[in-house]
């Protein structure tokens, strides 16, 4: 393994106040270190936000209609999700969680394929290699280790792939979070850990996950830089994540970015968030909404007009309509799939079990009264 220099401690500590480049009113903020992305990049991000918000709304509606079993909404976190996709190059990989459907879609996976898992047709509905997106992980923090191993393999072969691994604040309490940080730092691999701190792990608040000054402060304990960013400011997330990705690609090793954001809706549609938080608290975050903030900024810059806005809304509507149509269509499900993918070679036992099920299916579809 390559030896690497130890960092001075001061270089590893995050800022006391999260990096911000556009404030909640839409006004630009000057930063001594981070440069605001240009208007083209921000317009591209804005389109992602509009589409992401529409997809979240559509998915929630599809749960109510019984077309999705469940949907973990990222309403309010779209800036994190869109930026996570936008900072990656074609050869880079994204390791998302169940709440990161908008990031997966922003990476090019079709919304319908992204929802396969939630619809119940199969577990992961897209080709990971085609889009360089790992299957969405449900167990917390386990995918962070996969991201590290993936990056280790890339480094082993001399490829300049960067891996961006997503998790939430709850996941930082898991042992695998610690092991992933530690392995990544010890082996100095090109991974960026991106924590979307949305304040709640289902019902449990951040104060019950950690007593640290911030989640980004944990990085110094592993010997990697940590940074805090306003997770509802897509310009800041793009800048901070972009720098972390660039550093990883240049051989600078892993880093940890904590985005301060908020889960505006319940954990999933099965959750009742009125039992653990006050309505006023949620309302207060509306003023920090990532969409309105960027819209105000781009409009003031003259980069966004009503015509463009309408076109973006129409595009998002098309995506939502396609998702709706795809999920309203009856799925063609093949019961043999149960046995087909357990391992590369089907065991004699599974062959017997498939024959048993096929017999049951054949009997069940015989016309009644036929014998």
């Amino acid at each position, binding site marked *: *393994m390559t030896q690497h220099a130890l960092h001075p401690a001061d270089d590893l500590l995050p800022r006391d106040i999260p990096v911000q480049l556009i404030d909640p009113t839409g006004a630009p903020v000057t930063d001594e270190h981070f440069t605001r992305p240009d208007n083209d990049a921000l317009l591209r991000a804005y389109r992602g936000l509009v589409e992401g918000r529409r997809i979240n709304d559509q998915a929630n509606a599809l749960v109510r209609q019984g077309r999705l079993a469940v949907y973990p909404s990222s309403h309010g976190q779209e800036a994190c999700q869109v930026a996570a996709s936008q900072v990656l190059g074609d050869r880079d990989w994204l390791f998302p969680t169940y709440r990161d459907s908008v990031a997966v879609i922003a990476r090019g996976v079709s919304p319908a394929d992204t929802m396969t898992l939630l619809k119940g047709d*199969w*577990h*992961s509905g897209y*080709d*990971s*290699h085609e889009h360089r997106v*790992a*299957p969405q992980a449900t*167990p917390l923090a*386990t995918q*962070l*280790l*996969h*991201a*590290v*191993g*993936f*990056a*280790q*393999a*890339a480094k*082993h*072969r*001399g490829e300049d792939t960067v891996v961006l691994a997503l998790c939430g604040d709850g996941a930082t309490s898991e*042992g*695998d979070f610690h*092991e*992933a940080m*530690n*392995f990544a730092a*010890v082996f100095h691999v090109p991974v960026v850990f991106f924590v979307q701190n949305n304040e709640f792990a289902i019902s449990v608040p951040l104060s019950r996950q950690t007593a640290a000054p911030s989640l980004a402060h944990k990085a110094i304990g592993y010997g990697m830089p940590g940074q805090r960013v306003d997770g509802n400011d897509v310009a800041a997330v793009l800048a901070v994540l972009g720098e972390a990705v660039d550093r990883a690609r240049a051989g600078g090793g892993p880093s940890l970015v904590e985005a301060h954001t908020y889960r505006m809706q319940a954990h999933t549609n099965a959750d009742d968030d009125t039992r653990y938080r006050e309505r006023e608290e949620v309302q207060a975050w509306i003023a920090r909404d990532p969409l309105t903030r960027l819209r105000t900024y781009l409009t003031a810059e003259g980069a966004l007009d009503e015509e463009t806005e309408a076109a973006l809304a129409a595009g998002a509507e098309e995506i939502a309509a396609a998702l709706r149509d795809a999920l309203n269509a009856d799925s063609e499900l093949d019961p043999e*799939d149960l046995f*087909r*993918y*357990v*391992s*590369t*070679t089907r*065991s*004699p*036992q599974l062959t017997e079990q498939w024959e048993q099920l096929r017999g049951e299916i054949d009997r069940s579809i015989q016309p009644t009264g036929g014998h």
Partner: protein
Amino acid sequence: MTLMHDEPRVEVDAPVVQTMTMAAALNRALADAITEDPNVVIFGEDVGALGGVFRITDGLTERFGEERCFDTPLAESGIMGTAVGMAMNGMRPVVEMQFDAFALPAFEQVVSHVAKLGNRTKGALRMPLVIRIPFGGGIGGVEHHCDSSEAYYAHTPGLTVVSPSTPQDAYSLLRAAIASPDPVVFLEPKKLYWSKGEVDTSLTAELGTARIAREGTDVTVLTYGASVGTALEAAEIAAEEGRSVQVIDVRSLSPFDDATVTEAVRGTGRAIVVAEAPGYVSVASEIQARVFERCFEFLEAPVRRVTGFDTPYAPPKLEHWYLPDADRILDAIDSLHWDDEEADAS
């Protein structure tokens, strides 16, 4: 050293036929696999300079470099989880879990990801990795060093679970495990690491197949791992008493070789299952049930199990009472509803 996916494969060390310990056979299998396939990497705790606490990886770092065999931080879930990511990215990791009970922190990664990723992605992401676990007792180890955890793995769909009982199988099965596109839990009987036997490195073994360890006509003993030796010892004694005992080393706990086992038990009409693990809800229970389902009309007596007791693994000074020995196997054989004529005739 940079190694590409498409780097041409090179010849392994020239095949040999020689007597060696199981530990040496495993070491040779790892060395040959590393030589043959540039995507094979070996890692775990103490596998580098030390060569593993049982010396199975002895000399590999020295010979092949840290890129191919390296020590990790002390964290089993980390070892397993990073192996998953490497396998996703085209490598063939072989990880060592040091002792069976130490593998438990990695259990979530094994069950939720190693075993399932191929299934979750309809085969798009393969998991060609091997989890080497020194398993079982009989070495006087203190607590957490002698467990038999095979039932946990064999119960998990998607995992191939094998255990060798001879140096030849140790070599051939480990080569097969590393070459497999699917994840393999490779259980190494600690007690047998220093047992010797002839190894022909040109021989292959097929995962999923049982091996007839001894021919016999009166009763079939179905077993695996270190218990194979105990069963063979019992068979020797039984032979002196006029009973012909067949011993099947089932070798592959999942998938299970029903064909070989069924044919064997139908031939003798009597069977016992021997294993070190507690018998309750065990691999031994599963084998017993399968034999009952497939051989009932051929059986002259109930299929019995001889297993460890349903207690946590014994302290070193009590383990000789815990472990199934030849006497316990012989007692079980004696209980199988023999009639004198049949015993005399055999």
